[in-house]
């Protein structure tokens, strides 16, 4: 019983959300607000039981009067409570203390994160043999040259303290091209994954015998979206069927 009801709810909401492809409508609005409400409530429960209870409240209970442990347990609670100062105008500034704590900590952690992964690893792996010798073939060497030149041009694209004119302008333009190829490749790789997701969703709808209706909706929506992007869509009655 609960399962069947669940399937109905799931399929109904799916169709409501898909109707957004056509235009904003009351069904989408309903699904959106249910989604927002349920997920906000659900995550409150989950975060409370997986983070707040074990990380904030339990340590306090388990400290057993040991002053060191008590201090360790009380500090995050105090910091969290300071955040609630925003609700009261007079002491609202107190909330900046925990904010400063978190922002400082993670700004520092991210300095290291970027320096020790992205930065040094990319610099190191950009060092490649530039001519054929030993294990490097001429083909690899040429590819290394292209990669090397591309990298330098792309880096020059990000140059801020000089106007992009003359040689720098040309180099940054080439850099832009490399970036565009890079973005295109990334785009191409993602397309396939996204389409298979949509197929998976359609499959699920099919499993619950809504195939005909749902596919009609899907196709109509798809045609409108790709073919008539800029035209204001007109009202349509059949779209409002759940």
């Amino acid at each position, binding site marked *: 019983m609960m399962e069947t009801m669940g399937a109905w709810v799931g399929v109904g909401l799916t169709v409501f959300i898909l109707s957004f492809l056509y235009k904003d409508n009351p069904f989408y609005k309903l699904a959106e607000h249910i989604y927002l409400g349920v997920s906000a409530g659900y995550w409150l429960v989950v975060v409370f039981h997986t983070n707040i209870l074990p990380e904030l409240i339990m340590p306090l209970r388990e400290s057993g009067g040991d002053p060191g442990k008590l201090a360790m347990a009380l500090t995050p609670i105090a910091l969290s409570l300071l955040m609630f100062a925003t609700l009261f105008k007079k002491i609202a500034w107190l909330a900046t203390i925990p904010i400063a704590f978190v922002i400082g900590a993670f700004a520092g952690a991210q300095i290291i994160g970027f320096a020790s992964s992205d930065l040094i690893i990319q*610099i*190191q792996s950009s060092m490649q043999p530039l001519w054929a010798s030993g294990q490097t073939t001429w083909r690899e060497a040429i590819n290394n040259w292209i990669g090397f030149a591309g990298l330098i041009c792309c880096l020059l694209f990000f140059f801020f303290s000089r106007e992009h004119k003359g040689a720098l302008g040309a180099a940054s333009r080439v850099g832009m091209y490399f970036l565009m190829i890079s973005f295109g490749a*990334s785009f191409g790789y993602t397309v396939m994954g996204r389409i298979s997701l949509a197929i998976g969703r359609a499959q699920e709808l099919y499993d619950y015998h809504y195939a005909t209706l749902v596919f009609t909706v899907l196709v109509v929506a798809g045609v409108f979206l790709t073919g008539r992007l800029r035209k204001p869509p007109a009202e349509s009655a059949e779209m409002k069927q759940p």
Partner: protein
Amino acid sequence: MKKQLETAGVLLFLAAGVILSAKPGKPVGGETGQAEGPARAAAEARPVSMRPAEVLGAADRWNDSGDALRLFVRQSGDPEKQALGVLVSEGGGSGWKPAAAQVVVHRDPSGKSTGSLLPETAGEIKDQITHTLTAQIPPDKRGVSMRLRAVTRNIASNGLMNIAALALTPDGRVAVGIELSRDGKAGLIPDAFRLDASTADGPTPLPIAAHLVFQDKDKAVKALEEEKISGLAGDVVLVSLQAVPGGDKPFMLRAGFLAASAQARDEIAVSGPSLPVAAEAAWFNGLRLNVALLLAAVAGLIFWFMWQAKRSANLYVRRIPGIDAIEEAIGRATEMGRPVLYVPGILDMTNIQTISSMLILGKVAEMVAEYDSDIVAPNMIPFVREVAADVVKQAYYNAGRPDAFKPESVPYLSQEQFAFTAGVNGIMLRDKPAANIYLGGFYAESLILSETGFQAKAIQVAGTAEVTQLPFFIAACDYTLIGEELFAASAYMSKDPRMLSTLKAADWAKMLFIGLIVIGSVSLSLGMPQFSQFFEIAAMK
């Protein structure tokens, strides 16, 4: 004419790609480097004399082709030395060939100890110690200070392995670990060697609280199933750490080999226990000298240019169209009497993109307040909402209109990615903002948001450092800040010479990196890999 020339150049380039791709050699760069199998490892490893009797504990793992890897903790000729190593056997398990370095910890009766490593080129364990590492035990602590790093090539499919061990005793905190690179170049299992063993008394195995460290095989297998271990086949993990009975906090360790492939998840080989080890803390991790130097260089440049900016206000920064577009978009929204939508991404404050987005939000909200326009800044992360609300409130205050700030203009929607997305879509369609600004860390919702915004005919400016999402923003938005431009935005908008000077410093840092890459590439071409090896990373965060 210029355009045709450019198009011709691009076509020529693609044609070159066709030729160069016809018979691909090895892929360029570490990111896509092909994995090398144990068979190759065995072929390249030099034999080291190794008698089975010396192996204190060993554990084997076989792969599909019958190659076997044997992990062992062993004792060398000298009972005070011990080694952790790997043997490789090709196709069926007969004839072991060592492919790993041996980590040797030497302790003499006076309490002085040395830790050593033997790379695979070493012959006899006893005599050819190539690196001697600092180690000392204060008599009262009976610990060995170890910072060992053994570098071995081609142990398993993932290439190079580093072994780092570090054990701390004085305060009861113990850390022993093994780090492995994933791609043969760099990138080690992070935090593999941090564990807390504060109850380290007595002979029972210690509860170990690091996610890569397990007491027994079953737990390790369970963690594998729960994907808490992201190790690749052949990764070495610390399996257990056991206090030596009656000892004053020295430990024995067991190492394990992961077979993390989907087919062979339950394959984890566990070694026997090692000889006792203990250690004291060091202040500086020398393995990270390269990162320290690089960071110091960047920071040094930043400080230098800041100091320069103080002395002379003469500082040129080129126009960055994407950032200028933000102001234009706000202006247009004001003219149309419609609000500005600001989405600070979906990542937590732990990500610097979000921090950067908050800094830009301050400038954007100040402009909005000055123009007497409206802003909507919906959030997915509750903490980010609190910060954003603070930032916007402060911006209104700075603009001299503190009473115009409405708390509901910075709402929290939901902590669920797509519920948030659906909610922002709703705002776009119903509040009809004329300018949509997306700055921060975005994932899959980037395209849903920017396409909806496009169809709602808003001016859109986006910016992120997420490489995978940039193409979608570029396709759907009017302007996109790419990577570094996002981080430059707050300095650029501030127009403060000291802030702008950091952009100039970043330019010089880029020149420095280009120089390093040139030196590294040329020296590699000349057959001198030392320079590039210096930048190989020993541990990744």
